[in-house]
């Protein structure tokens, strides 16, 4: 019986290992420690807000985040008033109005984050033909997830290794599969001045933006883990009682 359990576990493990190994085409990605990992993991609100600062001042000039609404920013610790102010800083198109014309107005809580380009063609035209992907789910949409995103953002090298043929307009990145990436390095010492006074080192900024990206991809994470703990405790007690009852009912059989 034990043999069977072990084989079953190996089956799951093997397939998992196989799919994992298969998915990663690039170099090994170093594991980072994130506040949201583990059974009780939660997001660090400070990191999320700093991450939003990096997204809105750096990433947002090329990358959209279509699945997020301004209202979602209240979940990372901003007050409603703060988010209203943030949203009002963006002009969005609305309409048609009573005269049948489209018009622009300041964004509201109920608007999706404003995208930098009207469509994919416009994005490519502005970026040498490369399409900056939407970042809403990027932390789940790449093998390695947040660790990969961090390795990518901090993995630029000024000069590629000797003998590496780097194409015109491309940049060398250690984490990117194939090592040639169309996006130049974005994080430099002091790229942003953090509102909360945290020193803006490359590592700090990398951690912060990846935290925000992971929140964007898994906004339900805190609710999920918190509910999981309660459900699991309930199940432990329930299953324990079932087991005791089973023993009692079966006591006269063997």
């Amino acid at each position, binding site marked *: *019986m034990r*043999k*069977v359990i072990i*084989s*079953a576990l*190996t*089956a*799951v493990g*093997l*397939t*998992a290992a*196989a*799919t994992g190994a*298969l*998915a990663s*085409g690039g170099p090994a990605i170093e594991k980072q420690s994130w506040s949201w990992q583990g*059974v009780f993991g939660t997001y660090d609100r400070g990191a999320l807000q700093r991450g939003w600062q990096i997204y809105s001042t750096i990433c947002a000039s090329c990358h959209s985040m*279509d*699945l997020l609404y301004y209202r*979602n920013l209240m979940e990372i610790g901003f007050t409603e008033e703060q988010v209203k102010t943030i949203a009002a800083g963006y002009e969005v198109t609305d309409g048609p109005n009573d005269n049948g014309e489209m018009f622009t107005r300041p964004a509201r809580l109920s608007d999706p984050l404003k995208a930098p380009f009207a469509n994919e063609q416009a994005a490519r035209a502005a970026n040498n033909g490369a399409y900056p*992907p939407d970042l*809403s*789910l990027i932390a*789940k*949409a*790449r*093998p390695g*997830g947040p660790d990969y995103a961090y390795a990518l953002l901090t993995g630029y090298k000024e000069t590629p290794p000797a003998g590496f043929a780097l194409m015109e307009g491309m940049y060398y990145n250690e984490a990117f*599969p194939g090592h040639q990436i169309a996006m130049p390095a974005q994080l430099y010492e002091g790229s942003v001045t953090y509102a909360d006074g945290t020193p803006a080192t490359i590592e700090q900024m990398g951690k912060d933006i990846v935290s925000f990206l992971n929140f964007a*991809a898994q*906004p*339900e994470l805190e*609710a*999920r*883990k918190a*509910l*999981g703990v309660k*459900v*699991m405790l309930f*199940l*432990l007690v*329930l*299953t324990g009682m*079932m*087991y005791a*009852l*089973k023993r009692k*009912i*079966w006591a*006269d*059989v*063997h």
Partner: protein
Amino acid sequence: MSGEFNNKTIKWVDDRLPIFTMLKHSAVDYPTPKNLSYWWNFGSLAGFVLVIMILSGIFLAMNYTANTSMAFESVERIMRDVNYGWLLRYLHANGGSMFFIVVYIHMFRGMYYGSYKGPRELLWWLGLLIMVAMMATAFMGYVLPWGQMSFWGATVITNLFSAIPLVGDYIVTWLWGGFSVDNPTLNRFFALHYLLPFVLFALVFLHLVALHAVKSNNPLGIDPKGPQDTIPFHPYFTIKDLYGMGVFMMVYLAFVFWAPDFFGEPDNYIPANPMVTPAHIVPEWYFLPFYAILRAVPDKLGGVIMMFGSIIVLFFLPWLDTSKVKSGRFRPLYKQFFWLFVIDCLVLGYIGAKPAEGAYVLIGQIATAYYFFHFLVLLPLIGKIEKTKPLPHSISAPVLKGGGIPAGATAKPMEKA
């Protein structure tokens, strides 16, 4: 008939529609071998997962949009804006994987204990039909989120039918409802994904009807000799199954709450794009052994035939296995080959996840050959040459470790059987 019920209302209804008598016969009194091990929990577990899948699925369908331009985002709106939508979706997605784990264990248990042998051939067949219906349902369900793997998985699998000589291309066009996997394909897959679980439910009902006609097999593989060998389903197996469900729920929900994307592919969080092919197109893990068999043959039609053959051969299992003894417990030779077969399936699953290159191709071909060798050569042969261990006189006998005690003497007053 309904003299058994004291409650007047129940009696009134039962006299006109004997549902209570039916329930009592099949869920309360149903005589069950008293020696069933925990491996026998997986049947009821599978039924339990089916109910979870149907319930979570109905609520997902209320919020899902089957249109190529909206499907991906509608799933994300479920994840973000529907109350507990993330829970529904993760229950459903991980439930699919759990369903296959439970059913595969259920089938391996049937193979080890010879549960497919007469008079349970039709019971086994119905189980196989359930598995086939599950596979179709799971495949179409995976297409619905309209991510990259959804789209390319659907493209690869539907293209298999183009291997059929002469009419293959027409069949594929007919399946797609167009000239590529597109909106008509997504729409019909959604309709079928909603329909098939109810077909599945009907098959499960027939599976149970057949089970209750031939009664459960048991770890000894011998028939109960009399009431002293069986116990009523309720309360003995109701509580045992409930306990099993508790344990199962803890495993299942650990994935749902802490590793919800464990069984998934990162690529499926990228919206489907017909212009960009993912580096590796892999099916969901539960299809990997069959995928490995498909790829083991260099010829497309040959691969498709082998893949379908690997399922069809299971239908012949009751006659391929020539042994008179059911349980692997008394079949020293078969027991070893059973485990070799399990390992072979795991190897196939591993190979299915690997790119078809280098040593993987050869290993995949050997494992595929062994899969068929096991059914077509080993099983008929082992049954003929194997020296089986002596069977116990009755189910009660080995339970008491007495061996030779007459069966009647072991009945206990508490059993009420």
